[in-house]
């Protein structure tokens, strides 16, 4: 195998069994197979990994991870875990059946035994995993990949099941795609000049723009011209998550904002922007409308936190609620890193008193938590809106956080609908 790939001395030693465990050898063989299949000429050492493979899809994945454990494999770089299928602090919250529950739990445990950092979050960048500009890493989970490349300027492809953990153990990834500097230049320009400036102040602007970017860019690297001010991290998170849900977006440059795009020329590597698309108000309106599949007045639940809600967003939710309780359950999905913060000043208790159900370590679209009689689910997340119907059966209604709060308090859709 791997006849065309240049091996370093250390890699050769692991493959020949002169160095490392059998599990490390198995992981390196998997990474080399991926490199061969993708046409990479060598591997690149990585500084960190984010592991998406801890979400349960079947017994075979658990058996694979446990085999790595038995063979003595250990991660050799810091490797945070994405969401699993269970809230480990409240396992009964998920309605997974007996055998699946057991294997889903074993899968999460196996990742801990491989030396992963048990962060169980799809927003590892909130939990302190923030590789620097130009750092080579191997990250999974589409929103985290887009954030890592675009906002942090670290370099990763879109890693997925098995290859992510294999890279974390081998400490290496196939050198191709977005690991290579010249592949990171934009090839498409999205121009916001025709969008009224005040639209950018709207809470839904960034998730909707993200969803539109995904549709237009697909797997291409694009650059967006015309973002004003300095968007906050939660806004950038929402944009990346939207783009990575509707398209295979791994990297989007926001000119004047993200680190590899101080100006248009740099974003395009000095080449002219040949494919230019002007975003029209109509395109934004349609992209927003496409995120809703229900138009009834009634809602059954609200889901927030895809990607995981930050503590800032939780505090904003509490402030907007103004002590008025919710008539339908409001599921807030978040990581333990945020929960610790919210417990300190009693924000979590105050939100629970209003009717918030906290979902830690996982989220409501990847494991059965919502009541098993699908109805209408309101959300401010483009990603939840995109996946809700297929994964949960619920019809999504998309709106701002203000709209979600007002609707949860009324038990029906209310808010600023009909604006742009």
């Amino acid at each position, binding site marked *: 195998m791997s006849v065309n790939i240049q091996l370093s001395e250390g890699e050769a030693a692991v493959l020949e069994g002169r160095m490392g465990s059998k599990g490390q050898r198995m992981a390196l063989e998997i990474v080399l197979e991926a490199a061969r299949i993708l*046409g990479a000429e060598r591997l690149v050492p990585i500084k960190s990994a984010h592991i998406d*493979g801890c979400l349960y899809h*079947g017994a075979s994945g658990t058996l694979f991870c446990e085999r790595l454990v038995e063979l003595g494999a250990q991660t050799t770089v810091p490797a945070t875990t994405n969401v699993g299928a269970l809230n480990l602090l409240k396992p009964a919250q998920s309605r997974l059946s007996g055998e699946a529950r057991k294997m889903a739990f074993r899968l999460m445990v196996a990742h801990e035994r491989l030396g992963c950092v048990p962060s169980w979050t799809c927003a590892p960048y909130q939990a302190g995993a923030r590789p620097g500009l130009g750092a080579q890493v191997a990250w999974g989970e589409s929103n985290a990949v887009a954030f890592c490349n675009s906002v942090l300027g670290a370099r990763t492809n879109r890693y*997925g*099941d098995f290859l992510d953990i294999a890279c974390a153990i081998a400490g290496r990834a196939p050198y191709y795609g977005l690991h290579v500097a010249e592949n990171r230049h934009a090839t498409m320009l999205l121009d916001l000049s025709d969008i009224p400036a005040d639209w950018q102040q709207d809470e839904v602007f960034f998730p909707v723009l993200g969803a539109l970017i995904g549709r237009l860019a697909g797997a291409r690297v694009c650059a967006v011209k015309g973002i004003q001010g300095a968007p906050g991290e939660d806004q950038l998170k929402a944009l990346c998550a939207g783009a990575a849900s509707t398209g295979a977006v791994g990297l989007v440059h926001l000119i004047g904002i993200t680190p590899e795009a101080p100006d248009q020329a740099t974003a395009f590597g000095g080449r002219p922007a040949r494919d230019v698309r002007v975003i029209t108000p109509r395109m934004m309106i349609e992209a927003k409308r496409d995120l809703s599949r229900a138009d009834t007045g009634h809602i059954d639940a609200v889901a927030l936190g895809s990607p995981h809600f930050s503590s800032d967003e939780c505090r904003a939710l509490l402030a907007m609620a103004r002590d008025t309780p919710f008539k339908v359950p409001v599921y807030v999905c978040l990581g333990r890193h945020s929960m610790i913060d919210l417990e300190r000043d009693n924000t979590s208790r105050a939100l629970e008193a209003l009717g918030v159900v906290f979902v830690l370590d996982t989220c409501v679209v990847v494991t059965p938590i919502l009541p098993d009689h699908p109805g209408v689910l309101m959300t401010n997340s483009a990603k939840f809106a995109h996946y809700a119907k297929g994964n949960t059966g619920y019809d999504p209604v998309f709106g701002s956080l203000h709209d979600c709060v007002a609707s949860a308090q009324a038990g029906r859709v209310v808010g600023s609908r009909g604006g742009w």
Partner: protein
Amino acid sequence: MRWQGEVLCEGRAKGEVLRIDAPLSFWGGVDPATSRVVLAGHPQYGVLIKGKIVVLHELIGSSSSSAVLLELIYRDVSPLALILGQRDAILPMGVVVARQMGWSTPPVLLVPDPQFASGVVLSIDRDGGIST
């Protein structure tokens, strides 16, 4: 007739082609327990992919498709072989891991713009040769 594919995962197979006529993500699109296509509205909705030489022109969607293919192999309901129209590592990773686990695995070939119709019987050899 004879064609040459690029070997992404080595193996031999002989069987009937099942051509997938619209993009399909295995995750969310194929039931890992039965191999049935479960994506509503898909041209192959309801069809079992087990025991077929599955031809996929265009790959989309989740990187968890590797996990679904591994599960199909583990449950012995996998396709006989996969012919991909585009270079991609996601489905091949399911095969690479299955081989590491010692399970019997289907070959995966890359054939740009594969023109094989459903129902045709093909033989695939270890070097990526395809013949009727």
